[in-house]
């Protein structure tokens, strides 16, 4: 179906098969496509960044130019279309950037309507759930709530660009320390051109009084989205951070290359939960987001704890390995993942657990669901370094297949360099049984509801790790993503 860019929001919503596939009719200030030093200077200038930040970006860009796009991911059926990095526009912002809204009343009503359609009634949701929302619309943050309450606790939760201005010492200290600006091709690209994201700092001994949440949304034709998130939990601090996103329908592939860095000091704990629902492309594999993300956490201090939970249902292609470096003694790393691929979607996801400290502990639970012609790959590394004595890992890797044209693949790598380590890996592959569906049918439950129920049961251990509201959303999302996949 051709999309007329002049159609209104409501027309979009009605025309679109993709429930959340609408665009907001809002004038934007967008840089022309292309990537060079000048573009990076403009981005930095628009953000009013200090010199050191610009230098950091340019350093990353210089390295990136010599880097090669990785090709090793396992995408069996996908017709890989090379990304033309010069065809992407690297900056777009709502027009009145200078006088950015300071409260919700000042926010463009069309924007608020968009959030409404996304199921994010900002004020209500914030009030009901006690969640502070730092909503990113394209590249600029538009509204932040609960600032006062957080400030009272000493918590810093702000757009990344604001942190660069107001907390340069913290940003300088931690930026690129977990994911260096030249870590990999996409991380380097992000370092060069990132426009915004979130910054969180939880001071010593503080338990963040609420769940922190950010919503990302791609809303510009041909505009890559490059978020950068940095979360630091100082000694004894605790924070739970939620990230969720949906994207409107587009025919061109859009690139999403985010970087998330987590740092947990002694006795600190960070819980990072994601629901990823970027536009996956249509049933013929046309369109959809390329989601190439680098997420890594450093358990820097003793007894620190980092937990990643992700529900990945969107994107045409996903390349994502939220990882933990367990440096502190007795530190804990966890990874709970549900990845669903339908139609022509391809997901290559997993985790790396690098055990450095003594008596470190990691737990991996990965649930992959493949339907249609989707392919799901688990790629994991568990590495126990020589000095990491008495460390343990447990990995459970389950795949579920729906239909006979999809695939599940696992590439687990285990490298143990210390003989006191205990490493366990369990894997299973199941097919949704006709007999299970018939049993549900016989109790009056439709096939679609039956599949959704069976799949949700399969993912239960992961959903149990999500905060309540998020778990509800995740279940709804799986149901929507699997619609019409029952033969």
């Amino acid at each position, binding site marked *: 179906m051709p999309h007329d860019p002049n159609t209104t929001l409501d027309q979009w919503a009605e025309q679109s098969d993709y429930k959340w596939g609408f665009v907001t009719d809002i004038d934007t200030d967008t840089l022309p496509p292309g990537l060079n030093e000048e573009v990076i200077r403009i981005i930095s200038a628009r953000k009013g960044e200090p010199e050191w930040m610009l230098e950091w970006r340019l350093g990353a860009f210089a390295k990136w130019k010599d880097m090669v796009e990785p090709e090793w991911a396992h995408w069996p059926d996908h017709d890989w279309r090379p990304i033309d990095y010069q065809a992407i526009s690297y900056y777009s912002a709502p027009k009145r950037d200078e006088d950015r809204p300071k409260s919700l009343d000042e926010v463009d009503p069309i924007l608020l309507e968009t959030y409404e359609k996304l199921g994010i009634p900002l004020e209500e949701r914030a009030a009901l759930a006690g969640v502070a929302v730092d909503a990113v619309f394209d590249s600029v943050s538009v509204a932040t709530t609960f600032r006062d309450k957080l400030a009272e606790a000493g918590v810093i939760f702000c757009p990344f660009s604001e942190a660069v201005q107001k907390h340069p010492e913290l940003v300088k200290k931690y930026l690129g320390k977990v994911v260096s600006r030249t870590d990999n091709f996409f991380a380097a690209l992000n370092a060069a051109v990132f426009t915004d994201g979130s910054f969180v700092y939880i001071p010593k001994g503080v338990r963040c009084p609420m769940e922190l949440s950010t919503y990302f949304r791609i809303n510009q034709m041909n505009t890559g989205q490059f978020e950068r998130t940095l979360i630091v939990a100082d000694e004894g601090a605790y924070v739970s951070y939620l990230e969720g996103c949906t994207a409107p329908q587009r025919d061109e592939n859009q690139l999403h290359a985010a970087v998330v860095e987590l740092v947990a000091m002694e006795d600190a704990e960070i819980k990072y939960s994601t629901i990823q629902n970027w536009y996956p492309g249509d049933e013929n594999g046309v369109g959809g987001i390329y989601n190439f993300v680098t997420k890594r956490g450093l358990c820097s201090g003793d007894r620190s704890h980092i937990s990643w939970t992700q529900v990945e249902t969107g994107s045409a292609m996903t390349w994502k390995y939220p990882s933990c470096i367990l440096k502190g003694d007795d530190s804990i790393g966890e990874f709970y993942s549900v990845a669903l691929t339908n139609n022509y979607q391809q997901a290559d996801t997993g985790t790396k657990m690098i055990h450095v400290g003594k008596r470190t502990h990691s737990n991996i639970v990965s649930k992959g669901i493949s339907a249609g012609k989707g392919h799901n790959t688990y790629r994991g590394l568990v590495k126990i370094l020589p000095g990491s004595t008495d460390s343990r890992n447990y990995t459970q890797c389950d795949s579920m297949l729906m239909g006979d044209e999809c695939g599940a693949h696992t590439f687990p790598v285990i490298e143990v360099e210390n003989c006191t380590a205990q490493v366990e890996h369990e894997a299973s592959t199941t097919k949704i049984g006709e*007999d299970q569906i018939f*049993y549900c*049918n*016989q*109790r009056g*439950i439709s096939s679609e509801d039956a599949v959704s*129920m069976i799949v*949700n*049961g399969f993912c239960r251990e992961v959903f149990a790790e999500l905060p309540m509201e998020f778990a509800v959303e995740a279940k709804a999302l799986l149901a929507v993503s699997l619609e019409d996949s029952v033969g």
Partner: protein
Amino acid sequence: MSLLEIKNLHASVEGIEILKGLSLTIDPGQVHSIMGPNGSGKSTLSRVIAGEETYKITEGSVLLNGKNLLDMNPEDRAREGIFLAFQYPVEIPGVSTKYFLRTAVNSIRAHRDLDELDAYGFLKLVKEKAAWVQLDPALLDRPVNEGFSGGEKKRAEIFQMAMLEPTMCILDESDSGLDIDALRIVANGVNQQRSPERGFLVITHYQRLLEYIVPDVVHVLLDGRIVRSGGKELALELEEKGYSWIEQEVAAGA
């Protein structure tokens, strides 16, 4: 009008005909029993009525309250009042029995234009019906049939039947693998549900179950056809003489 009316039903699976012209009529309030040797088509009959798609219907009709069941998908048949207590109930890992049942109850209620049952109303109903088959309600927090003993699975099926209030109940060997106490409990659960409107089709190998669930009519199924029907004394006769007796009689008569 009859509750369930099956006429000249032919069904096959992978090209092999299993039901070869079966006819059967059950009136409201009646309990019919089907007995027969292994492979005679008893389970096939139950699954064909419930709508399992592996079976191909080549001829005949199945009406429930005058409505053609063969035109309906399995969930609509269930909503119209067909309930099958499975011989081997299926496990659904990770889905709690309560959640499963509440979804089932409410989809059936929606079909009957009844309001959704709220959490309180549902739990009240669960407590009442679970007692009918002496089922520990704590079991219902576990995933559907997962980790249930053989006897618990059979009792859970009868409990589900009580929850869904069907009009036509089919029990596929609900007695298999049960000791005598469990058998009494299952039978008692079924008897509680007997009513002037509801019909039962009890499939079994042994007449022992029929001592507790007393049938109005007993049918003998042989090679895809009902070859003899009679009162409850037919079951006793079968018990005594075995199926070969009827096989020989049928062969002689043919």
